[in-house]
């Protein structure tokens, strides 16, 4: 049975949850995700992979080759957007402790794995997906070393199905060079213990490095064992840091420890040392764009402008949205990128900063992040510019070639009460 459909929002849910199917997307305004656009595209998908991406003028459709052909009628096609450094799936309701699974007891917890706490059935996830965010990095919080994150797509029945990269990296809260004070109300001042705190971290990593060289010589050490691949493999070390002093010390630390894949998360001051980050090839996951300037005197639009400043400085960067209500706010990630456009970043670069760049930084770019041949068919279609809340209107979602519903628990309530109110 072959289907030929003109896109409509509600139809897809259950009909196409079959496997081994071949899908052709025609007439889409394609945003590849690597900076390029194809205004009239044809995208061929077989099973979970993208078979080809072509200009429509150079392709003749043979209908019998496809199970499903969808005419996108000029709508925009985007690679699945990414929410890096997020507690999405690790929390359901922020204020209810029972639903929070992202902060373990202890200071140095590299062995703690977010993966197994990830709730694939979170109601919040369904509302994030429907704005085009299809990949998340479930990230633990707290302590000096919070634990290991994993990268997942947002369609699995369980974490095992959903995971893209298990234990992709370890998250290190770099000591504060400027003390935030012991209480919430305390004023900031220079952290007198900064050198001491730093030395502790250095020593811990030195020991881990020794362990990594000859693990068999040691008794099993859960912490050091989890850190092995920082030195020998592709595991990322994510430094959470914002101040210039911290950033410069991290650059030194990475050289000293011969870290292969360091990443800075935050980096509010990164624009001040862009050249050094560029030379050290350390990418940055910028702080939540929709946030107030840190300092009274800062440019009122500095957080909006950071992507542009790093773009100009040649530093690899992507966007993330750690902060207040970050799980539910993951659905606003496309609009963070959109706001960056208003402050100088070119539109396709903005898209990159929430798709291909994020995937490259996390090390999943071979399969995700752009709509290119051989990659997983993880993409979505929007009636208008998906980076603008006014026009973001998602009509089709594919994750690993599987078509997903464009509804969520909220649209269900919407429907129910529209009926009740007679709207």
């Amino acid at each position, binding site marked *: 049975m072959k289907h030929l459909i003109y896109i409509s929002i509600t139809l897809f849910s259950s009909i196409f949850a079959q496997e081994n199917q071949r899908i052709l997307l025609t007439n889409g305004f394609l945003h590849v995700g690597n900076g390029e656009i194809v205004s009239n595209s044809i995208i061929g998908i077989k099973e979970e992979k993208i078979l080809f991406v072509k200009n429509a003028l150079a392709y003749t459709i043979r209908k019998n080759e496809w199970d499903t052909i969808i005419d996108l009628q000029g709508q925009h096609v985007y690679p699945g957007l990414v929410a890096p450094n997020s507690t999405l799936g690790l929390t*359901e*309701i*922020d*204020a*209810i402790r029972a639903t929070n699974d992202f902060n373990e007891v202890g200071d140095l917890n590299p062995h703690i794995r977010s993966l197994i706490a990830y709730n694939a059935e979170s*109601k*919040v996830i369904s*509302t994030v997906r429907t704005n085009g965010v299809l990949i998340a990095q479930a990230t633990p919080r707290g302590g000096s070393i919070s634990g290991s994150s994993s990268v997942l797509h947002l369609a699995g029945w369980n974490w095992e199905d959903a995971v893209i990269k298990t234990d992709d990296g370890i998250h290190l809260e770099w000591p504060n060079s*400027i003390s*935030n004070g012991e209480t*919430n*109300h*305390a*004023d*900031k*001042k*220079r952290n007198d213990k900064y050198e001491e705190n730093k030395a502790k971290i250095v020593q811990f990593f030195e020991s881990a490095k020794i362990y990594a060289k000859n693990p068999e010589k040691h008794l099993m050490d859960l912490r050091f064992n989890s850190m092995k691949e920082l030195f020998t493999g592709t595991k990322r070390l994510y430094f959470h840091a914002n*101040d*210039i*002093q911290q950033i410069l010390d991290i650059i030194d630390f990475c050289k000293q420890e011969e870290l292969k894949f360091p990443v800075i998360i935050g980096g509010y001051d990164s624009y001040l040392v862009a050249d050094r980050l560029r030379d050290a090839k350390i990418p940055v996951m910028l702080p939540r764009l*929709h*946030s*107030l*300037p*840190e*300092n*009274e*005197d800062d*440019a*009122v*639009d500095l957080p909006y402008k950071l992507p542009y400043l790093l773009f100009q400085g040649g530093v690899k960067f992507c966007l993330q949205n750690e*902060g*207040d*209500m970050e*799980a*539910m706010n993951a*659905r*606003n990630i496309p*609009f963070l990128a*959109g*706001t960056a*456009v*208003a*402050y100088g970043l070119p539109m396709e670069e903005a898209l990159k900063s929430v798709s291909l760049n994020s995937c490259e930084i996390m090390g999943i770019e071979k399969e995700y992040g752009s709509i290119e041949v051989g990659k997983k068919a993880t993409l979505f279609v929007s009636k208008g*510019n998906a*980076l*603008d*809340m*006014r*026009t*973001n*209107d998602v009509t089709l979602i594919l994750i690993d070639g599987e078509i997903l519903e464009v509804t969520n628990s*909220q*649209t269900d*309530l*919407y429907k129910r*009460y*529209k009926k009740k*109110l007679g*709207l």
Partner: protein
Amino acid sequence: MKIFSIFFIILAFSSFSQEINPLNGVKQSKPNFIALKNATILVSPTKTIEKGTILIQDDKIINIGMIVFIPDDALVIDLQEKTIVPAFIETNSSLGLPKISGRHSFFPQIETSKEGAYYWNESIHPEVAASAIYTFDEKGIEEYIKMGFGIVSTHQNDGICQGISAIFSLGTTNYSKQLISASGNPFFSFSKGISNQTYPSSQMGSISLLRQTLYDLKWYENATKKENNLSLDALSNQIKKNIVFQTGDKLEILRAHKIALEFNLNFTYLGSGNEYAILDELSKLKLNVILPLNFPLAYDVKDPYTAKEISLSDLKHWENAPLNPGLLFKNHVPVSFTSFGLTSANFWKNIKIALKNGLKESEALEALTLNPAKILGIEANFGTLEEGKKASFSIYDSNPFSEEAILLESWILGEQKILASSQKIDIRGKYNLIVDNEYLTLEISGTKEKPSAIIKKRNSNTAGNSKIKKRKRNQKTVEIVKDTLEIPCYINLVGNDVTLQFSSDDLKWEGSVSLHAKANMKFGVFEGDGTIADGTWVKWSAIRNETAEKTKSSSGSDSKKDKDESEASFWFPNMAYGFTEKPKTETVVIKNVTLWTNEKDGIIDDATIVLENGKIKFAGKGSPTTPNNAKVIDGKGKHVTSGIIDEHSHIAISNGVNEGGQAISAEVNIGEVVNSDDIDIYRQLSGGVTASQLLHGSANPIGGQSGLIKLKWGHTPEEMLIPNAPKFIKFALGENVKQANWGDFNTVRFPQTRMGVEQIMFDAFERAKKYEKEKIANPNSYRKDLELEVLLEILKSQRNITCHSYVQSEINMLMHLADSMGFKVNTFTHILEGYKLADKMKAHGAGASTFADWWAYKYEVNDAIPQNAAMLTKMGVVTAINSDDAEMGRRLNQEAAKTVKYGGATEEEAWKMITLNPAKLLHLDDRMGSLKVGKDADIVLWSTNPLSIEAKVEMTIIDGEVLFDSKKDLELRKINQAEKARIISKMLAEAEKGSETKPFVKKKAKHFHCGTIGEEGSTESNEH
């Protein structure tokens, strides 16, 4: 002859003076009279006598002048042109009072824990009398004496009504003689102090509590059948007196002054040091101010990474604070000084700083003597050195205001206390030093009391040679400065004895040289002997050829300093992005622009808008005449809208957004604690917001009154408040008011369930009804209750409710409650389940003000959906999108755009949700919310369609004042940077001069949300 006769009368009268205290042993001997002659006497701020005499009998001055008859039986002390200064008077001290410390309990303490017939709130304790708890503190007294004080008013610094001060003379004899008055000044403040009681928990709560206390007092004083209350008894005696009101910020002075006017009280304000920012108000209102002199130290700015953390406002305050005293005097504000925060080590240093920064010497004296005497009401006896006044003064070796003087003696109530040898000589200057036939130069500088010295030798060798030869040896550093050798030298002066010690390898003798001599300063000569390195005794001498003054004046570094001072400037507000002059209304014409009128015309392309006299004069198609002096802007491709109105905001608030100390706090008012210095005002302007309802938080069922403001950056709080704005109050329901997310200890305050919320509200309104009956029955003797007065306004539909609410059950409840009481709920705010009840809300007539897409942050928002706003709008409920968040407040245009995405609102509908609809909800739509001729000129110029993600604000105008301009903003950033750099380099120069510095401390960026508890803002989440 006349003087003579008076003198005898006094003598006859006072020689028989008696004392109560029994005497142990034989009566102490003392002369009948004491005459101090040949002194320079600073009689009063306006009068100085050279070579004058003071005649003292017992504790009194009985004569003073150039020519004074000195009786035979007088002890005559020749002061040899030393200077006599009236004893300084300290108005603000806690000398001799016990240290106070509070208790802490995990469970909230709602009622007073103080036993006895006292006021119900522990921060109101006017009954505390300092005289009763004073104990002798010799060290403290000596410290004050060393600074030149003779009289101190001491009080317990704690609470809102702190109690009454006791005025003491600083003598060391007996209490009864020292105590001038047990009834000095009452002290008030806005700080609750160590009280552990939950109420008040905010500044607005303190304001209300003080007002209620004063109303209670009125009732207490008049009521016939009264209870006894020791606190009110004490307060009753105090309110006629001169009350000292402690403030922590300039704005608190303006807040307290409103209370002074309301109750006809006489307040003297104890300032905080930034009063220069409200000069106009102070001089207009003719307020009395006591100023601290503890000027901020320069920050340690050597490390640019930490220097960048210091805000421009802190830097500017450092530069401006020393100008504070002089500026206030110049503006005719009666100023007194307090030494609070200073010690004898830095007291004069700070006075001199003020003198260098525009304060006159006579003003300094006035602020330390006459003015404080008036505040204490003791000017009949103290403050100046006049006949009949008490003999309390200090003797310096020269004028301490103009020179570096040493305090020699302190006379308190006629009793002499010798503090330093009057023989202290000034040995500073340049000397030719001859030791064992070696010819050197000795330079003595430093202070007169603690001189420092350096020995120099002109090098006879060539400079090159000596440079190679001379390096560090041992600890002493020997440096070659050009061709002069400089050797540090230890110097000590005791009486006339001078000791010198120095060490060098480059003199005739290698090693240490110790010298001792008698100084004869009449000739400027030292002569003596000492030992050289090998222990040989040698003769030495030094002859002065240049005195200290000469050395000083020749250095000539003062001209640069003056230049620096002239650069200090005051901005409005005095921080980054402040204006150099207060903004003024402009005439503005924007042509060829797209207007979002929010009126029948809808969105019009290629139109023109004219703003004149703060109003919209024209908006639409056509070509109106361009007024003279108009700023004409070409708006091609751009859009103009009316300003964004944020129905739910918590920016620009001082010291607490919640008065959560009680379940009902209708008496508090956010409008009384507007903070005009909040950078978030400017940030909101950059996002096109022109007006905000500053709401009380949601910590209790009946919160406080709103402050409706326009974001008039650069203006005072009073000028920001919207004139004749409708009255609003915040109510709240659900998790916050039942303290569901406040931890395990907050389980005491009623209510803890939604069930309790209904009952406490019912009860409140029933009490209000009874209160009105009482008011009508006894119009002259009822007890005015600020809380119930406000509830009555609600019952009479004179005040609107904005109610924090989430789930449908509680929303339904409040509408029923309101219906039963005969009023309407004006606005449900947050109202995330509004869509479930849109029909009922429409029927009740309630409006909605909601978030665009927030949810999942607590249980009661589990059913929140982003389609809410669009659905409510479609149901005919007036709906606004609000922020409740300083960050989101500056991109409400984006939040409005989300209603297009979710629920399918039209662009015009979406735009009205942040402009016209909130104006309607606030009943301000007759003057704001649309581009209509005659409405306020509150408009925004956008780079493109304001709902687009690419839209940026180019200009925000309020009342015709251009308060944000994106081009000017870029300039301001440069100006900020330059100003910062200028002050930082000035600080570095200070540090190089050896001034003390302090490490940087930076106030955390804190923001208030609905659920933020306490006076400080927070960085916590989930507070909505």
